[in-house]
């Protein structure tokens, strides 16, 4: 059973249909890269999965449970959404760290708030808090930031901020971790450290969907690549095929333009 199944998803903003009847599925431990030019609908797709946009049609199924059905208004209720969106983690292009909290606090904040809803919170308060904080430290260590726990976001480089953001998403242990162009806001010399962290996550079989413009990276880390254009999936398959040897005319043209611009 796939961990994620998306069926007939569409999203329209006013007169523009940004996503047109998209269906795909994802296996546990799989890394899927989504490539395509700006405006192709990649980011909107991720935002739909994270309930930041409400799709107009379609269903989203995680672990066999339908967590969103556009035809069923009950699946859109505010309270339900809050629990369901925890199936997904999202790393933003612009990090969106909370500036008034340290790196460690950024990672623990949501977990500590969620813990308050646990039935055993009152009796095991200190234990639970300690667990969350130690877990956050371990995750920050795994992204190479154990020496920056008490630094505020403005004291960190872009690459370090994005690694904190990745740690923050990982701390809630999502089933599927989504990345929205995680290196696009970074200076070129800082992209490497972020890509290295994502690569390590792929090696540890974290289930991920990565919207990216980094073709060689996508080629190396992905199990599958999805090329989107104009709101539809044009080509889908292993990276050697989609990036290495594309069948579709539109994919070929996109990659040609990409490599002509001096990218690798």
């Amino acid at each position, binding site marked *: 059973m796939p961990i994620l199944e998306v069926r007939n998803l569409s999203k329209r903003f006013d007169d523009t249909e940004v996503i047109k009847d998209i269906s795909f599925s994802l296996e546990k431990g799989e890394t899927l890269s989504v490539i395509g030019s700006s405006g192709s609908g990649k980011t909107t797709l991720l935002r739909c999965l*994270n309930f*930041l946009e409400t799709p107009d049609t379609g269903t989203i199924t995680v672990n066999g449970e339908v967590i969103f059905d556009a035809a069923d208004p009950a699946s859109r209720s505010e309270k339900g959404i*809050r629990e369901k969106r*925890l199936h997904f983690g999202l790393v933003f292009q*612009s990090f969106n760290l909370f*500036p*008034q909290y340290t790196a460690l606090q950024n990672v623990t904040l949501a977990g500590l708030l*969620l813990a308050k809803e646990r039935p055993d919170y009152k009796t095991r308060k200190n234990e639970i808090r300690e667990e969350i904080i130690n877990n956050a430290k371990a995750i920050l260590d795994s992204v190479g930031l154990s020496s920056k726990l008490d630094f505020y976001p403005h004291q960190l480089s872009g690459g370090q901020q994005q690694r904190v953001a990745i740690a923050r*998403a990982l701390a*809630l242990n999502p089933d599927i971790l989504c990345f929205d162009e995680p290196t696009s806001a970074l200076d070129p010399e800082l992209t490497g450290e972020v890509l290295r962290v994502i690569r390590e996550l792929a090696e540890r079989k974290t289930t991920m969907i990565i919207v990216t413009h980094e073709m060689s990276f996508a080629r190396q880390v992905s199990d599958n690549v999805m090329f989107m254009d104009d709101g539809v999936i044009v080509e889908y398959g292993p990276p050697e095929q989609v990036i290495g040897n594309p069948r579709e005319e539109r994919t070929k043209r996109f990659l040609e333009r990409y490599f002509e611009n001096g990218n690798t």
Partner: protein
Amino acid sequence: MNIYISSLFEGFWLNIRLFILTLAMAIPLGLVITFGSMSRFKPLKWLVRTFVWIIRGTPLMLQLFVVLYSPGLLFGTPMKSRMTAAIVAFVVNYAAYFSEIYRGGIESIPKGQYEAGAVLGMTKPQVFFKVILLQVIKRIVPPMSNEIITLTKDTALARVIGIAEIIMCAERFTKQGLIWPLFSTGLFFLVFNGVLTIVLGRLERRLDYFKV
């Protein structure tokens, strides 16, 4: 000479009381007005924005008269005390100004902060109180400081409805041919605002540990 000085202190105590009571009530009331003016329920939003427009668009001096006289004229229940009328007028007026500062502060926080909180499973109130609020406070401290310093001087306006604040007290001596008490009232405001400037500056520096 002591009579003069103690009279000025007595007057200034009224300015200070008016100042403190206005701040204590206008700061929270302003937040309520902000939520109204940012409401997604259009009729409420436009009602509140019209109210803010009227309050900011007319002189505070006129509002003092309106608050003092209209309960008696409209409902036959005159204001019991002039001080109450002054407090009501000041609170409403300043809450309207504060609400616009708050709104500017809230609207200046990037959408990504709300989205980051939401995808981490935080509720809307959690996002507001744990993520947004302190950033808003940091942004509004400088414009609020400005308004608060203006408020100390505006309290002198209460004299138009017969409240014996410091300048009114001092002017009585002018009629007796003594001008220095009137001029020296400026010192009271200067010292008070000097202290305020230091306190507000400290608050601003205390929020310097992060950048928005």
